[in-house]
């Protein structure tokens, strides 16, 4: 009987029927969190997890950031390093780490947002052409595969190829083993509600009158002086005090009661009224005003945005 370590280091080699393999990359998702596999073990719960987490605030460790649809895929994986002996033997000395170059459509307002991820170590999920989202098994958890990405800037088109509005994304995985040995997937029915959010800016649109402030909500664009005013889309929906919040104090930890919010057609914004008793009791200083968390806004049909804040001054 041969003395062997095989039983301690190898696995059986039978294949299961209808086994699956990764398809063509469709969307890259950045997810630096960790989810119990048992909590997302059905297609419905897995889909709900991605939908919910794509609408978290970007400060959440469980946030899923959604990149644009991939339109071009090039495998840029480093070749395995091989070694040889002079009697003809060759072997793989070091496995190449997976890498890809993607092209996506993106405008000048979006590309700088994507480039904020450049050269940071992130964990990546990949939606493929079979509606499977691939991640990594880590004990009892589903996580992303560790990688670095680099998003190039937009260039002037030459008119010789599909170049206008095409951004190049380089994805480089930090280890081969996560993808090659630990890859697992969940299935989704639809990706329409797994969305990237847009950052919106708040500002005062007119002078305040005592406890009554005029606030606008806009999205900056790449055009000089250009912005998208959310009043045009959400004037009625955002006329709700349940979607706004205000804070005072050195670290803005003290809520200030908002008594009403009304659409302000004159200034294409909203009239936000604070409780006059609380307001009067405040010392002169700053008040932080913002919309509520993206998930709260989404539930009120104000979709696809995450609020910044404006600091208004009580004289």
């Amino acid at each position, binding site marked *: 009987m041969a003395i062997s370590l095989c039983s301690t280091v190898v696995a059986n080699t039978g294949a299961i029927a209808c086994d699956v393999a990764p398809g063509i990359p469709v969307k890259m998702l950045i997810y630096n969190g960790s989810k119990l596999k048992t909590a997302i073990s059905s297609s419905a719960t897995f889909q709900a997890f991605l939908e919910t987490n794509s609408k978290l605030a970007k400060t959440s460790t469980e946030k899923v950031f959604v990149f644009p649809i991939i339109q071009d895929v090039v495998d840029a994986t480093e070749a395995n390093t091989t070694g040889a002996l002079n009697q003809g033997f060759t072997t793989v000395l070091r496995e190449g780490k997976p890498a890809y170059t993607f092209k996506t459509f993106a405008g000048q307002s979006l590309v700088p947002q994507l480039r904020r991820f450049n050269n940071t170590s992130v964990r990546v999920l990949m939606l493929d052409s079979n509606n499977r989202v691939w991640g990594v098994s880590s004990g009892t958890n589903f996580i992303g595969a560790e990688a670095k990405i680099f998003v190039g800037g937009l260039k002037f088109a030459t008119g010789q190829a599909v170049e206008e509005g095409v951004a190049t994304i380089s994805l480089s995985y930090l280890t081969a083993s996560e993808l090659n040995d630990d890859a697992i997937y969940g299935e989704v029915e639809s990706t329409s509600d797994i969305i990237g959010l847009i950052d919106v800016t708040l500002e005062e649109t007119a002078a305040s009158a005592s406890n009554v402030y005029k606030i606008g909500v806009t999205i900056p664009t790449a055009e000089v002086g250009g912005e998208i005013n959310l009043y045009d889309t959400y004037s009625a929906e955002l*006329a709700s*005090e*349940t979607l706004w919040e205000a804070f005072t104090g050195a670290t803005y930890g003290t809520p200030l009661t908002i*008594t*009403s*919010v*009304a*659409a302000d057609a004159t200034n294409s914004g909203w009239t936000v*009224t604070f409780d006059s008793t609380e307001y009067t009791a405040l010392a002169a200083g700053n008040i932080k005003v913002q919309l509520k968390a993206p998930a709260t806004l989404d539930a009120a049909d104000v979709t696809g945005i995450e609020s910044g804040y404006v600091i208004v001054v009580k004289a």
Partner: protein
Amino acid sequence: MKISGIGFNSEWVASQSFEDFVKHEKHHGLSKEQMREVHTLCVKKHKIEKPKVKKVE
């Protein structure tokens, strides 16, 4: 609670006397009848039996 396109903090409204509520929110330009409707609905929603009484000056 949204009335006439204005989102009112119903819990705060219910905690105010009608007179204080009108004085606080008069800048919206609603009629007294509309303000009465808002106040009544908010008080009913939060089942406040005795709203704050307006101080006599």
